[in-house]
């Protein structure tokens, strides 16, 4: 199977079940953009590395309880990256600065994902609150150790539709 074509929710479900290969694919998919955001928060390359590593550590630790508002994991990862930076290096620039090196990536996102990123990373809103602000419903992805019988067909829900 071409893992590049596998969607985030599937990879996240596999991660939830303890599949390290799935985590590796999510790392390959999103570590470059997270590193460019962490670069803004960090004072040194080592700090940037630590922020990104801890972000994926949080993903692994919390995969079984993670609730997504859209089909993309990236907004959650960016929100977590910001939180990790806040707690580890204590420096989160205000305004649009945190996204300045990933502006092209953000602009290519869906409108919901773009708004989530702006609210979480720029405004500092928690992911769940930002989703609620946008009228999105967060949905649990799965439980560790229990492979879901059926993957959610649609992870994006607006106003319950």
């Amino acid at each position, binding site marked *: 199977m071409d893992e590049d074509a596998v969607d985030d929710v599937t990879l996240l479900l596999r991660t939830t079940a*303890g599949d*390290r290969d799935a*985590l*590796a694919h999510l*790392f*390959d998919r999103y*570590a*470059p953009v997270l*590193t*460019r955001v962490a*670069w*803004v928060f*960090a*004072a*040194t*390359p*080592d*700090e*940037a*590395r*630590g922020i*990104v*590593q801890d972000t*994926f*550590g*949080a993903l*692994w*630790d*919390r995969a*079984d309880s993670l609730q997504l508002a859209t089909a993309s994991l990236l907004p959650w990862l960016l*929100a*977590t990256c*910001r*939180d*990790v930076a*806040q*707690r*580890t*290096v*204590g*420096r*989160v*620039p*205000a305004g649009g600065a945190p996204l300045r*090196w990933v502006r092209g990536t953000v602009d290519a996102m869906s409108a919901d994902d773009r708004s989530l990123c702006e609210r*979480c990373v720029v405004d*500092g*809103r*928690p*992911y769940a*609150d930002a989703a609620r602000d946008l009228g999105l419903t967060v949905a649990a992805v799965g439980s*560790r150790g229990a492979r879901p019988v059926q993957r959610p067909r649609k992870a994006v829900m607006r106003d319950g539709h």
Partner: protein
Amino acid sequence: MDTEPPQGDDLQRMLVPMKRHVLEHATPRRSRRGRTTGIALGIVGVLLLGATGGGVALGLIPTSFTGQAQAPAPSDTPEQLPSEAPSGAPVSDEPTPVLTPTSTPTPTPTSTRPPYSLSDPSTWTISGTEVGPVALGGQLDAETDDLRGVLSDEFSSCSNPRASFWAGKGTLLTIITGADGRIESLSVRGLAETTDRPPTTAAGIGPGSTVAELRAAYPDLRRSSTSDPDPAVTDDPYGGLTTTVDGSFVTFSTRGPDFPVDEVWVSTVDDAPPTEYCN
């Protein structure tokens, strides 16, 4: 950093060891099972309270701060704690709240340090009751009024009103308050962009110390509830190594056995910092 982040081959070279690190630590040991197990054991222990010294059980159950510190779980053997002292002479005339452990008192601390300088966090001592001028159990405003001019919370943009971040002079101090506004946990990290050093314990351990130095200074270290629950893993402090100082949890976190201490956590409530404060 103001410089442009790496691209192309430079970025890939940076990502390779990062990916290896992430996958090496992506094992079930970092799941919440350790904490759950601890809580379950604590509940069982409470049921045995009165019969076999249930103080152990009390320490395993996270409790809300109530003005007095809940005694962390004492180890099975008498602790050989390094002499932990308050940070020398207080810089404020205000009395410092003193936490009273509810079980076995720790040895009376004997200060071996000179009085600290408020303006130099490297002279502050991390004890079980305070980090420099900031005391556990005190009200946030009262404890942080001296900090201004030394550390700044201007970058503290956390939506969690119970968490605040104070940075400066090589130090990142995270302050966690309880629902009553009293400080229940403190986290100390170093900042990379300066040669200024962050506070240390009376034993000289702080962010940047090696695991060997840590183990030598605190031979009674035990794994925190978020560490690897697998007993076969004997020397992986990832998730934190904990001791008890002045009745509080003092936990040292690293990214792995070959990495220096990157965080010192002092808490009357939890034996390890949360995975996140704000999100």
